[in-house]
């Protein structure tokens, strides 16, 4: 190394800090882009993450299904083995049945709203306090790109924030970075729905004079150019009028149960119709 050992730490740290600042600066100034190295990391990690999550799910299923069979009498073991086989068979059919129902729901949404798009499978979830994202098993090679809206049969899921060749990352509506232009269904009050992490969402910039009702549905307004108009985003949970300032504090419960998402539908523009 050319740098004297005494100054190596400062020298190395200076170079790396500058490199980090460059990456941070580029990322903050062009938030919609997925850079090459990020794509590489996502592409390499997604099969491993998918495999681990599938294994965990498998172990969890085995644990749930077979734990209580261990240690039974010999006589009962054969019978219980048979029951387990039947249960597994039944469970497989049930899984297929529920999967078909979910896909029918998504297909129904696609038909009723005349939305072109791509069906994707959720392969990973990031449910930390700060980041609320999911990973999909399709990417730019399937026609997906950054900014496209993602929905499920229950309602709006979020939008794609990173798209690699074969995987995409979706920012959920409950993430702090998520802002969607919405309108309430009955009172037609417009506002910005901002993610609130584990607390759900909040409707911002609703004037105190507006008559927002608890229980009414919140829909996408179609403004902003990302989400089509009229998709369900959530339900008004609470309206707090005892706050200082110009605006009401409106809590919204998202329509989608993100922890149970397995398949989603990415809405693509008409001209990029893929499926």
């Amino acid at each position: 190394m050319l740098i004297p050992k005494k100054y190596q730490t400062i020298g190395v740290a200076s170079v790396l800090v500058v490199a980090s600042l460059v990456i941070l600066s580029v990322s903050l100034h062009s938030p919609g882009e997925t850079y090459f190295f990020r794509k590489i990391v996502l592409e390499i990690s997604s099969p491993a993450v998918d495999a681990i999550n599938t294994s965990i799910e498998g172990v969890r299923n085995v644990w749930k299904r077979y734990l209580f069979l261990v240690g039974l009498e010999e006589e009962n073991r054969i019978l219980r083995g048979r029951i387990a086989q039947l249960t597994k068979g039944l469970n497989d059919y049930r899984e297929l049945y529920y999967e078909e129902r979910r896909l029918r729901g998504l297909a129904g949404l696609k038909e009723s709203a005349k939305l072109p798009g791509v069906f994707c499978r959720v392969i990973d979830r990031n449910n930390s306090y700060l980041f609320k994202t999911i990973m999909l098993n399709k990417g730019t090679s399937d026609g997906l790109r950054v900014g496209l809206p993602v929905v499920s049969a229950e309602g709006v899921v979020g939008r794609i924030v990173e798209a690699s060749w074969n995987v995409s990352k979706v920012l959920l509506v409950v993430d702090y970075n998520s802002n969607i232009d919405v309108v309430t269904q009955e009172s037609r009050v417009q506002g910005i729905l901002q993610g609130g992490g584990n607390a759900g969402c909040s409707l911002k910039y609703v004037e105190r004079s507006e008559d927002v009702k608890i229980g009414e549905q919140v829909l996408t307004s179609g403004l902003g150019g990302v989400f089509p108009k009229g998709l369900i985003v959530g339900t008004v949970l609470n309206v707090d009028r005892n706050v200082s300032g110009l605006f009401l504090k409106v809590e919204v419960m998202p329509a989608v149960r993100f922890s149970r998402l397995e398949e989603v539908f990415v809405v693509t523009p008409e001209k990029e119709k893929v499926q």
Partner: protein
Amino acid sequence: MIYYLLLPLFCLIVLIFQTTLLNLLFLGKISVEVSLIIVVYAGLHLDAVKAGFLAFIMGFILDCLTGFVSGLFTLYYVAVFLVVRILSFKVYAEGYPFIVGFTFIAVLVEALFTALVYLVFYEVNILSGVLKVFLAQALVACLLSPALFKALDRLEGVLNVREAR
């Protein structure tokens, strides 16, 4: 040279483990940053170039896997490397009290740093919620750090990458 070739793979494996299995172990309530403990370890035991690159690569891959903004964790991990490096010249940094204390503070400062970035660039104040979660994360991480240091000591012995001081 082999160290620099294997470094990204090592970091990727650690971070996949951290974001999947370890996350599951704590029921998804808190995420324990093993990666941060490894950066602290590298700052104390490896030479400046090796440790610096480890911090940089670890932060960058963490950004790619979990972060929304590239460079956030990269910058923070490099800063952690620099601070631990400087402190190791000034104080006795090999003892467990230092390791536990430093890990605890590093996780908490990370929360403040992230909250500050969110406040400045996205105008969202997440500090109150973040502190509660990160306090728990800091406690778990600092309690795990001595055991992880021992494990890394063994791994380092096998790989023979320790700095000749």
